[in-house]
């Protein structure tokens, strides 16, 4: 019968559709495991345990960066019952409007929030927390979680230490192992040593019952994870020396870097103007003002600024001349207020001094003319077929001193400076059209040469060690913290160590040969045997930069210092006193009576507005 046939067809259709539904249910409920895990994620809650971040010590075990406890107030909106808005605002030291606004937000997004726990208020002090804890029972759904904030017991090394901040959405995208609400080191040591300082988070897993309340530990806590505290970092910094350096540099723009030559450990690294540690503790609030400051206090000049080195670079040229055999210590060159380097009479000026001079005296008096002759003989060395070839050789030698490339310190944002390549001059002047007179300013560390204060401090260490250095670094190996073995390896320059004493003699005389026309007599401290070299580097923006490098004592040196002060005039006027005071403080622990006036003058003078 036709109609019965149709009825059967319809019933078959019904059976097919019901089987499709059952088949899909069978797949979803039995075959596919994925949904079960998702359900666990929905119904198990993790309560995070944040590890304390590692602390940072100075080389003598003094605490530079510590932790102080603060609290975060968390809220599980679903668990919140009616409460007194004003009372909560008072307990948490916030405004009723804030509370209302948050609660309205939770209400709006309640279906998305579900049973999640959210952060209600951040950075709640211990005192506020105590008040809240007393009344916590009045506010079901709210609880507190311990977090730690940075604390700086000693005002030293703001720029060096860096700051931490909460992760940004962009950062999270690149670092999936972080979660919203985590903190990480943004700059300085905090950033460089993030991996050690960070530690790892732990958590308790709770199950929620069918009424949605936190019920019990999941599997008796078998899946809980302990938080691992971050590792503590010991730096090579001497907190007192760092602080003293900051005091000396107050009101000046520039940096001072002190290195222990026998290890390459950085004893102090001052960038001025810098940031005080109390700014670091609450960085978010100050960031706006600091980033707009025209003196750029956020910028770590010691590694991220590059300047022409000025006359301190004469040491390098002298050493290369000796190594190449085109200069002998006894060689004398005349200088009458400068060096004429073109037939038309162009002259590179010099100050008035006796003439002629040998190498040692030229170093002592920082004679420009002498080092023009030296550089000329390096570039016109008959061993090489062309100026270009000689220049390539010279550049290679210079770079072996750590110039024109990153030194590879363990500090972030280190710049490489610049030693112009032969190709650069080929492009600029065309191949074969540049010779010694074209680049005469390189003789005295001017022109296209750019170096960072760290690199010149490293030069001071090389002079102190008579020919080698250890890569400057700020972190010492300590329990659980290793440093790259490369920091234990001597890095030799391409100049034979035997050549160095010939130049070091001049550096000693510059400081200690009083009344002989040495440029660095200001740095003289009886009995300390400081050896130094001044520099006055031209700065297109205003007054010359004042530069000084030194080390002491002459034999078996303990400290090498470079000071680079922008727009401060002669090397002898500011860089020299600052560096020598730092040396004296480090070696003697106090400043001798005769130099107290100078210390006061340095500390009280403001060179920048």
């Amino acid at each position, binding site marked *: 019968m036709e109609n019965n046939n149709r009825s059967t067809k319809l019933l078959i259709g019904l059976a097919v559709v019901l089987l499709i539904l059952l088949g899909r249910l*069978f797949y979803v409920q039995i075959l596919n495991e994925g949904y079960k895990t998702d359900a666990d994620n929905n119904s198990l809650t993790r309560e995070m345990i944040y590890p304390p971040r590692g602390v940072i010590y100075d080389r003598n075990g003094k605490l530079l960066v510590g932790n102080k406890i603060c609290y975060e107030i968390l809220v599980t909106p679903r668990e919140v019952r009616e409460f007194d808005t004003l009372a909560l605002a008072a307990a948490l030291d916030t405004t009723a409007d804030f509370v209302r606004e948050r609660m309205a937000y939770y209400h709006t997004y309640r279906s998305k929030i579900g049973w999640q726990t959210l952060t209600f208020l951040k950075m709640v002090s211990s005192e506020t927390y105590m008040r809240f804890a007393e009344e916590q029972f009045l506010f079901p759904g709210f609880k507190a979680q311990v977090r730690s904030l940075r604390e700086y017991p000693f005002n030293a090394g703001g720029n060096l230490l860096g700051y931490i901040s909460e992760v940004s959405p962009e950062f999270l995208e690149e670092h999936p192992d972080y979660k919203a609400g985590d903190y990480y080191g943004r700059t300085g040591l905090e950033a460089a040593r993030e991996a050690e300082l960070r530690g790892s988070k732990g958590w308790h897993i709770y199950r929620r019952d069918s009424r949605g309340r936190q019920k019990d530990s999941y599997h008796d806590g078998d899946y809980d994870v302990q938080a691992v505290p971050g590792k503590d970092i010991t730096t090579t910094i001497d907190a007192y020396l760092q602080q003293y350096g900051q005091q000396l540099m107050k009101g000046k723009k520039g940096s001072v870097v002190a290195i222990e030559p026998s290890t390459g450990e950085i004893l102090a690294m001052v960038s001025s103007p810098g940031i005080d540690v109390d700014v670091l503790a609450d960085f978010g609030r100050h960031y706006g003002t600091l980033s707009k400051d025209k003196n750029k206090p956020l910028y770590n000049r010691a590694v991220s600024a590059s300047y022409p080195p000025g006359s301190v670079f004469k040491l390098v040229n002298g050493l290369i001349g000796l190594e190449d055999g085109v200069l002998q210590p006894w060689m004398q060159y005349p200088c009458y207020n400068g060096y004429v380097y073109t037939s038309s009479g162009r002259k590179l000026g010099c100050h008035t001094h006796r003439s002629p001079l040998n190498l040692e005296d030229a170093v002592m008096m920082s004679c420009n003319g002498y080092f023009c002759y030296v550089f000329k003989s390096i570039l016109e060395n008959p061993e090489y077929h062309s100026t270009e070839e000689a220049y390539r050789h010279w550049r290679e030698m210079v770079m072996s001193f750590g110039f024109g490339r990153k030194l590879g310190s363990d500090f972030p944002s280190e710049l490489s400076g610049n030693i112009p390549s032969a190709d650069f001059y080929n492009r600029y002047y065309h191949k074969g059209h540049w010779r010694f007179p074209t680049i005469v300013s390189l003789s005295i560390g001017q022109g296209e040469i750019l170096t960072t204060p760290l690199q010149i401090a490293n030069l001071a260490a090389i002079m102190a060690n008579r020919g080698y250095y250890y890569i400057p670094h700020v972190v010492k190996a300590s329990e659980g913290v290793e440093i790259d073995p490369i920091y234990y390896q001597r890095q030799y320059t391409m100049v034979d160590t035997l050549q160095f004493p010939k130049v070091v003699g001049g550096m000693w005389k510059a400081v200690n040969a009083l009344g002989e026309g040495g440029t660095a007599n200001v740095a003289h401290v009886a009995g300390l045997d400081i050896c130094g070299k001044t520099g006055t580097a031209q700065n297109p923006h205003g007054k010359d930069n004042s530069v000084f490098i030194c080390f002491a004592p002459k034999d078996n040196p303990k400290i090498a210092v470079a000071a680079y002060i922008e727009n401060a005039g002669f090397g002898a006027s500011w860089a020299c006193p600052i560096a020598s005071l730092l040396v004296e403080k480090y070696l003697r622990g106090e400043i001798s009576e005769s130099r107290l006036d100078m210390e006061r003058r340095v500390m009280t003078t403001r060179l920048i507005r």
Partner: protein
Amino acid sequence: MQEDALDRGLKKTVDWRLIVVYLALMLFGWINIYAAVQSGEPSSIFDLSCNSGKQALWMGGAIVLAALVLFVISSYFWESISNPAYLVVLVLLVLVIFMSHNVKGSHSWFELGPVKFQPAELSKITTSLLLASIMSRPGFKMSNIRHFIIAALIVLIPMLVIVAESETGSALVYAGFVFVLYREGLSGWFIGLIGMAILLFVLTIKTHWWISLIVVGVAALYYFIHYLRRTSSLRMRRRVVRNGLIAMVAGVVLVFAADFFFHHVLKDYQRERIEVVLGMKEDLKGVGYNVHQSLIAIGSGGLTGKGYLQGTQTSFGFVPEQSTDFIFCTVGEEWGFMGSLAVIVLYGLMIFWIVQDSERARSSFTRIYGYCVASCLFMHLFINIGMTIGLMPVIGIPLPFFSYGGSSLWAFTTMLFIFIALDRQEKKYF
């Protein structure tokens, strides 16, 4: 006479199987509504401040209503009011568009103080009644084009008004009436063409229009080969060719129309829902959120479920609308595949028995009405459960007898018991 009827063997005349399944579904629904309650404190299942307590009241009302329909109101009453009832409900359907508040974008609820009701629920009954009444008239033939158009209009008019109320889900249920028309003689090609149209629509928006065109071509080829080999007369052959060409052109037009309709006519949210169902879009937070959470809830139930009241997903409010449209999630999570199977088998039996009773009826009115009831139940079942397991777009329609809500429960109860009463009338004479 009613007294008389009671005396003449309730046991034999009333289809108790349907009533048992009805009660089973309603009770099972009720305890699941209780389980889906998400308030913090455990409360009694009768607590009137939560859904399960209110549902208990609705259920009491539904049983009274069922008794009225079955024992008090004459079964002839329904056929006699089918014309005016249809018109009155149609007027209500139109009025509600202008008089209702906007509930989640739809204008389909009358609100009288605390009481809310949807004329669309009633319309399913009145449409069924009128359809049964018209189609059971002597001389009515599906093959008569005029008769077919009348039957189609009875279904299409309320359907379009409901679409205008933005209740797409309820309107979709009316598509189920095509099964009734088929049973009463509508050509099977009609259903086949509708099926083909849906297939082409999905293919076009999911893949490319040219793939759809290939399908049209293959189908046409099959059609021509199949029928031209079976017909020998020239006239018949001409007809086959003509019909085939018309269908082909219609198919091609549909492919391009679907493309246009999907991209230019549908509103964004409708398009997104369809895209999520077709798997063209992974959207776990927005439109896809509901389905994703629903799948997690159902999927986490496994074979036997987590146990009654032990569900973590539905009772936590991860699943939205969990006591109304997504009530099946609670079943899936707490009772597992066994629970899902039980629910589907219960509905399957109910529909099967209704069809069986309808086929036995001598009165065409009873038979056609029975098919209407079966079709409506089937559409609700398929759309609702299909939605919770991601086979259908998220279309908010309730699971009959099961979901929370008085207006839906009462309407379905009335609809079912009218059939039971009609069926009982048939059996009185055996």
